[in-house]
């Protein structure tokens, strides 16, 4: 095998998984730097950021950014984080590396599609980032790209011409990449399971990736046509989303008759399930790791799977709760509010199952365990504010404020990130054959945990006070009272970002200098721990394992070790 075949255009799901994680790392660093720039401006609206004026003379003359430039940073931050971090890392990244091993397969069902999936996604990232380098800069319409401003071109503001087209092309490509990935996950889980690996014996992480891929299959195949229609409105003069008689920047737009609501419906029909595409892999990762660190079986495994299925199903009935302010019929707001409240039931049940699993356990406080606990904490903190937002009458007040920013950063952003961190600390030994530094890991957890609460908790108060989302500065008489809190958040965000340097150092250092990892350092049960660290090219050295047990055989009494591996032919003494 040549270098290109082995490391670049590889068909090996393990390499593709690492490529996805690498892309997500690159993307998350980009997205985080953008958020620092935004935070600095929110805290000190008149201060010049050294160097920014040189990087972007149009957007930040003299280093002080214009409101439009702030919006373009916000757009790119949201798009990069939601698509290229929260989708690629927990789903495509970990899923690619681990799903085939956990079901006992040599590779994905369609390795060529798998390779295409990554490279199309990578191309999508390049196209998106290239918006920074076009004349007008990136689009300013947010990660949701609401029409009609996203559909009419330059008149709608800087970046709304070429930048917005690049955005739409990038997202369309991203959809294609993720659809190819979802096909692979589904076929691999259904058809390539090894002998004895019944659906009931699938590890919880595999279940979560499988259900996520079903959600993704439906969601991305709706976003793709939406993006195509948006591109046609931008470049071909059609009027799918642009209404008649629209005057923007003193110019009557040549389009007529289109429906801006149509874009919102199509976008959020994808957009809400996308939230679960980001968070369900985290559910799976936490449920996979918790039994191994608590040395107890996961409480109610079948109930947990039922919760995942219920969340997946309901995720398609709630998209309108993003549109309470859109001018949609108020009666349909009620229609969307009810399933939104119902979907909290399976989410709450899953959370209670994790807490029940922890109850009475002798927890092994590894870094992965800490991040699982952190996941539960931020998911609950963010989820609670969701109850308020699900009420149309309350949402009308809160939707345009920082309350929502705090809510979704907790419940899907930080929670999914904590899932990614837990997964990284847990599976790094399997991926690279070396252990990560636990002491650095714990400091990383403590700093990040405190940091994210300091960043996102105060945002709820800002929202209640009436601080509006997407404003670049709060300097007028009415709003300047919130500046001190904004400064506190900015400092906390920089502190949280600095804590990630510990993580980056730990990653790089452990990759080359970490102590060698045994095959099963965490005494866990699923199949990836039955093979070497890192696994050989075909995962199991030519001998596909046979599975005799479910993944939940922890805390087994009456024998020397307290767990039975899935591939062990030994009978459960308790059974």
């Amino acid at each position, binding site marked *: 095998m040549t270098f290109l075949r082995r490391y670049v255009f590889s068909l090996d799901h393990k390499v593709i998984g690492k490529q996805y994680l690498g892309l997500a790392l690159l993307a998350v660093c980009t997205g985080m730097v953008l958020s620092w720039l935004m935070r600095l401006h929110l805290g000190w609206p008149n201060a010049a950021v050294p160097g920014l004026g040189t990087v972007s003379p149009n957007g930040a003359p003299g280093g002080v950014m214009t409101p439009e430039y702030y919006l373009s940073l916000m757009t790119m931050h949201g798009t990069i984080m939601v698509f290229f971090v929260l989708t690629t890392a927990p789903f495509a990244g970990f899923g690619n590396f681990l799903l085939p091993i956990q079901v006992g397969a040599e590779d994905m069902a369609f390795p060529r599609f798998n390779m295409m999936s990554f490279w199309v996604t990578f191309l999508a990232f390049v196209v998106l980032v290239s918006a920074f380098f076009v004349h007008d800069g990136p689009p300013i319409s947010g990660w949701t790209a609401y029409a009609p401003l996203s559909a009419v071109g330059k008149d709608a503001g800087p970046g709304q011409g070429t930048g917005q087209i690049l955005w739409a092309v990038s997202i369309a490509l991203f959809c294609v990449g993720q659809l190819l990935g979802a096909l692979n996950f589904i076929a691999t889980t259904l*058809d390539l399971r090894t002998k004895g690996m019944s659906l009931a014996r699938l590890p919880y992480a595999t279940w979560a990736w499988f259900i996520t891929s079903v959600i993704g299959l439906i969601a991305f195949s709706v976003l793709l046509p939406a993006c195509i229609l948006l591109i046609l409105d931008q470049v071909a003069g059609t009027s799918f989303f642009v209404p008649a008689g629209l005057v923007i920047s003193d110019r009557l737009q040549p389009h007529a008759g289109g429906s801006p609501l149509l874009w919102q419906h199509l976008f959020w029909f994808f957009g809400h399930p996308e939230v679960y595409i980001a968070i369900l892999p985290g559910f799976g990762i936490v449920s996979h790791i918790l039994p191994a660190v608590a040395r107890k079986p996961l409480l109610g495994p079948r109930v947990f799977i039922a919760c995942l299925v219920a969340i997946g199903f309901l995720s398609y009935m709630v998209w309108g709760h993003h549109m309470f302010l859109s001018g949609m019929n108020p009666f349909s707001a009620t229609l969307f509010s009810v399933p939104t409240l119902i979907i909290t039931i399976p989410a709450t049940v899953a959370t209670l199952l994790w807490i029940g699993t922890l109850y009475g356990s002798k927890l092994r406080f590894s870094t992965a365990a800490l991040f699982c606990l952190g996941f539960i904490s931020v998911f609950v903190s963010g989820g609670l504010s969701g109850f308020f937002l699900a009420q149309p009458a309350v949402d009308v007040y809160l939707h345009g404020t920082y309350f929502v920013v705090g809510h979704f950063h907790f419940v899907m952003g930080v929670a999914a990130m904590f899932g990614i961190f837990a997964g990284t600390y847990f599976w790094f030994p399997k991926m690279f054959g070396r252990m990560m530094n636990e002491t650095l890991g714990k400091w990383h957890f403590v700093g990040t945990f405190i940091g994210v609460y300091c960043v996102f908790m105060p945002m709820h108060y800002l929202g209640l006070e009436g601080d509006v989302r997407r404003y670049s500065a709060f300097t007028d008489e009415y709003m300047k009272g919130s500046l001190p809190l904004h400064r506190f958040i900015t400092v906390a965000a920089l502190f949280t970002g600095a804590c990630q340097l510990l993580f980056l150092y730990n990653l790089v250092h452990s990759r080359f200098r970490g102590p060698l990892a045994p095959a099963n350092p965490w005494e866990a049960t699923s199949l990836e721990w039955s093979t070497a660290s890192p696994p050989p090219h075909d995962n199991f050295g030519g001998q596909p394992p046979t599975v005799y047990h479910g993944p939940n055989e922890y805390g087994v009494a009456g024998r020397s070790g307290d767990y039975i591996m899935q591939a062990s032919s030994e009978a459960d003494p308790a059974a």
Partner: protein
Amino acid sequence: MMSAQRAPTAPIPAQTGVVAGIAAITMTFAAFTSALVMRKGGGADWTHFRLPPLLLANTVVLLASSGALEVARRRLRRAAPGGVRWLSVTMALGLLFVAGQVAAWRALAAQGVFLATGPSSAFFYVLTAAHGAHLLGGVSALAYLRYRVGRAAAPPLGALGAVTTYWHFMDGLWLYLFVILAVCV
């Protein structure tokens, strides 16, 4: 290979993949056509135009291609002669359909009906183009299948079944789109 140890009744990934792909494509066209219905109901600027009669002939060609593929599939499964030739007939009919769709576009363009002329024409071009692109994907799958049939001693039944399912679905999808277009446009 994993498949060596698997039971003969075990599901074939190609089949599962095609079913999942069909689900995705169904959602894509459901999104397109619900956009059409919403756009038609919401905007006052919806105009009607006469669909080119050529579409009827194209529909017949596409249905015939499905018939040809059925003949090919049965012959290949029985290892009877002529299977490959019928695959080629299917591909030719598929390409003829696409050529016919392009001719229908040109006929419309000659009447001055373009993509941006109005919402109904926009949806007409978008839907026919999206369907045509998916059908060309099917033609390349057929070409790949024909190449594999030529090389292997035993016919690749999994791939054959998957491609056949996809091709028939393309037929059904076109009938659905044709009805929608005939009613709304």
